[in-house]
């Protein structure tokens, strides 16, 4: 195994094996190759060693050893990240937390859940459901993503508009710092203003400040009812006007998802859900809550859609019908991913009112650079997913992809948006962060990093250099 920089030697491997047991330290080539990437397209780096701690003490022990030997540590869950955040660092340790996967406590009096970081996101909601409770954040990879990874990336999902994102549900964290110290941040209290809100510093820190070893989550009562609607439009503007009018009408739907023209065509080709061929935009709307309120809101949303030029409006009759309507949005990514060998999924986000402008700009960039870019995403959040359908081996096309992406990021920032709404910066977007942050904010980022991880051991080279 060729590694660069500070690197693992047999001594370090031996020490890790002594602390964790040989079976929880992977060093064989065939074991390491599958850890050389995460869910991000076209970013690879061979892992030098993968370790599987099973409790906080073991994480701290690995961290102390890493500090003694100056070894970088990349924390990883299920490796589904979309910005290269958990891609290995040359010569470093990959610290994989999937074996710390216990739900430690479900407190039905305070509506909280205490989890280890390797618990699968969906398992949290599944465990809450029998008690009539609800964990709303639902990132696309929720069937396999870990809660630790969600917290480290402040993951979003389809319910952001009404329910917010992961950060809104984190009440407390246990973290292991770069020197092996274990800290508890936050509490079960709804009100807690003691000191800086340190837990919030670690939410979205992408493994660069500490290793999350426990998460205390807030839960909500489970909504009793849900209604689903699907509206199609011949222009993105009419779709956007519908969304604005719904929110103006003081309805906050739990889902407001859209597909652009190209995505509609791909979904129709792939899933045959019956979208009109002339559709330039499809909006999936869902409202949840008290049954009476939900009925009323669904009817009003359908009316607003019709008033604003919808070609078709379909209100789900029952759960099966709702699933069928939702499948248009649900199958969007699968429909796109099979068209070309490489699929690059971005997540630029703009203020909601600028979304149609953003989608049009992306269409223009696709035409200008001769690329296939389909866009879908979360209308209510202004969070769009321009999806580049390309081939990473076609270097000429990849140059165009880079150029189009750069232009899209620049335009996003010009519209007052952000280069990443839910995937994180990681490696994929770190070159674009300074343009959004400016010098002073970048300096502040670095200052925080230096104070908490002075030796730069935790996920170095991610977010910024």
């Amino acid at each position: 195994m060729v590694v660069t920089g500070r690197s693992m030697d047999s001594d370090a491997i031996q020490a890790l094996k002594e602390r964790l047991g040989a079976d929880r330290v992977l060093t064989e080539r065939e074991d390491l190759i599958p850890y050389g990437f995460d869910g991000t397209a076209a970013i690879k780096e061979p892992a030098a060693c993968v370790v599987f701690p099973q409790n906080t003490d073991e994480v701290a022990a690995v961290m102390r050893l890493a500090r003694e030997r100056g070894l970088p540590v990349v924390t990883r869950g299920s490796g589904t990240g979309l910005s290269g955040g958990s891609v290995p660092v040359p010569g470093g340790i990959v610290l994989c937390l999937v074996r710390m996967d216990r739900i430690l406590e479900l407190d039905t009096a305070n509506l909280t859940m205490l989890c280890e970081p390797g618990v699968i996101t969906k398992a949290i909601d599944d465990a809450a459901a029998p008690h009539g409770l609800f964990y709303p954040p639902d990132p696309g990879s929720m069937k396999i993503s870990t809660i630790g990874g969600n917290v480290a990336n402040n993951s979003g999902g389809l319910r952001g508009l009404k329910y917010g994102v992961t950060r809104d549900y984190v009440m407390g964290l246990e973290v292991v710092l770069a020197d092996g110290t274990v800290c508890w941040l936050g509490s079960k209290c709804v009100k807690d203003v003691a000191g800086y809100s340190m837990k919030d510093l670690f939410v979205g820190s992408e493994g660069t400040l500490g290793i999350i070893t426990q998460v205390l989550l807030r839960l909500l009562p489970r909504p009793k009812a849900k209604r689903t609607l699907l509206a199609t439009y011949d222009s993105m503007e009419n779709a956007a006007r519908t969304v604005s009018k719904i929110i103006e009408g003081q309805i906050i739907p739990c889902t407001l998802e859209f597909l652009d023209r190209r995505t509609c065509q791909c979904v129709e080709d792939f899933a045959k859900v019956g979208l009109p061929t002339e559709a330039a935009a499809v909006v999936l709307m869902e409202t949840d809550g008290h049954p009476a309120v939900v009925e009323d809101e669904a009817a009003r949303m359908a009316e607003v859609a019709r008033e604003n030029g919808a070609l078709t409006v379909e209100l789900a009759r029952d759960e099966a019908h709702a699933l069928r309507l939702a499948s248009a949005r649900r199958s969007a990514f699968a429909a796109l991913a099979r068209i070309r060998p490489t699929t690059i999924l971005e997540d630029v986000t703009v203020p909601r009112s600028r979304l149609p402008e953003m989608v049009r700009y992306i269409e223009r960039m696709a035409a200008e650079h001769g690329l296939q870019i389909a866009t879908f995403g979360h209308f209510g959040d202004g969070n769009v997913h321009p999806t580049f359908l390309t081939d990473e081996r076609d270097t000429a096309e990849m140059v165009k992809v880079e150029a189009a992406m750069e232009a899209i990021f620049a335009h996003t920032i010009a519209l007052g948006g952000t280069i990443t709404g839910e995937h994180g910066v990681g490696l994929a977007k770190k070159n674009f962060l300074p343009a959004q942050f400016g010098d002073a904010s970048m300096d502040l980022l670095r200052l925080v990093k230096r104070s908490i991880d002075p030796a730069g051991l935790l996920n170095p080279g991610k977010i910024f250099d």
Partner: protein
Amino acid sequence: MSAHPTSAPSTDKAAGGLAPVRFLGGLDYSVVQQCMHCGMCLPSCPTYLETKRERNSPRGRIALMRSIADGELPVTREFGEEMYYCLGCLACTTACPAGVDYPVLFEHARAEVESAGVLDTPTRRFWRWLTLRQLFAHPWMLRLAGRLLWLYQASGACRLVREWGLIHLLPKNLRDLEPSTPVVRRRFSDELIAETETPAEIRHRVGLLTGCVQDLVFSDVNRDTADVLLANGCAVETPRSQGCCGSLHAHNGDLEQAREQARRLIDRFDLGRLDAVITNAAGCGSHLKHFAPLLADDPAYADRAREWDRKVRDISEWLVEIGFRAPAPAATGPGPGCRVTYHEACHLCHGQGISAQPRAVLRSIPGLELVELRDATHCCGSAGVYNITQPEQAAKLQAEKVAHIRATGAACVATANPGCHLQIQNGLADPAVPVRHPVSLLAEAYRAEAETPSA
């Protein structure tokens, strides 16, 4: 974390590039590249769920395959073991958003392993030769073996062997398997089904595949299949001595013999005359539908292979397609509320995307109540010969499956693949809860209906 059991000593040799035929490297690169390593396959993979190690996951295995195709990794013994730890259950293909053609990758990877010989030992070589190149290559040999096994079982010799302790003369791995040896039927398919059988009114003309294990152990299911087809206006042509379709060969790294088996099978049928070729074994069906890519480079067979692929149907798929007739309630059928649960064979639901049709068949049967099985699409551990090559992992999956079946309280388990059938039957070890093919239950309902005097 226990490594999966292996039997061969280390013989690291021959990188992929040095092998005479390049399997993974020779594939269209877009097949290798299609995996975007999103990880959606992970929660569907029985081996990943067991170990939580990426190399035991579909995307991990594909990463290894890609490394070999790229020439970054030689074909090693570790790689070989990994390819045989994979069940080939194809649950990952259902979960995959990018449409990765895992069956092709998996078959080429195993072929690469065999070509490199990294798992080679004299014993392994002997068993592969005996099964792939002899027993399952020549129908007469398999039937002869079946006859001998039947004699052994029917004559009571098997009881004597156990009682007299002769069983201890067998090597340990065979001894462990002996109790789960399938009971061979007295009469095989050709004795039960005439070469051509016609209904009173012919609406369709179909060929019937008799399979190999199905032919020996479940020839009654083949008879039931013919009966159900006849009851639905299909003339049934069942060529004699069909032999193995080659799925066993393709799944075990012998693509060359798989091609030979495919050619022989195609030759047995007069395709132009037939509307469909019917199979009732999921594992065969998911292979049978892909003869065209297998024989794409064979000018003499490429066209017929494409026609073949177009015409192959699983029995329940075909029944739903032609709008099969629901049996009328009968005096001797299953009593009202007879609970049956359905285990989805991997190569039916994941391999062929057939889930609704077998349920439609079951629901059509009067008096039969279908109760859903938890994790119905999870592998039962049979997975071809996996329960022989990886008994430990197979036993875990079998135990899970059996526990879920017991929890349904069903009086009968329906499944549409001989491997699953035997695996579940052995796991349940309960004569009170029989395992049946959905088509057999349908055939019984038709028979009961015929015996009931019309009101």
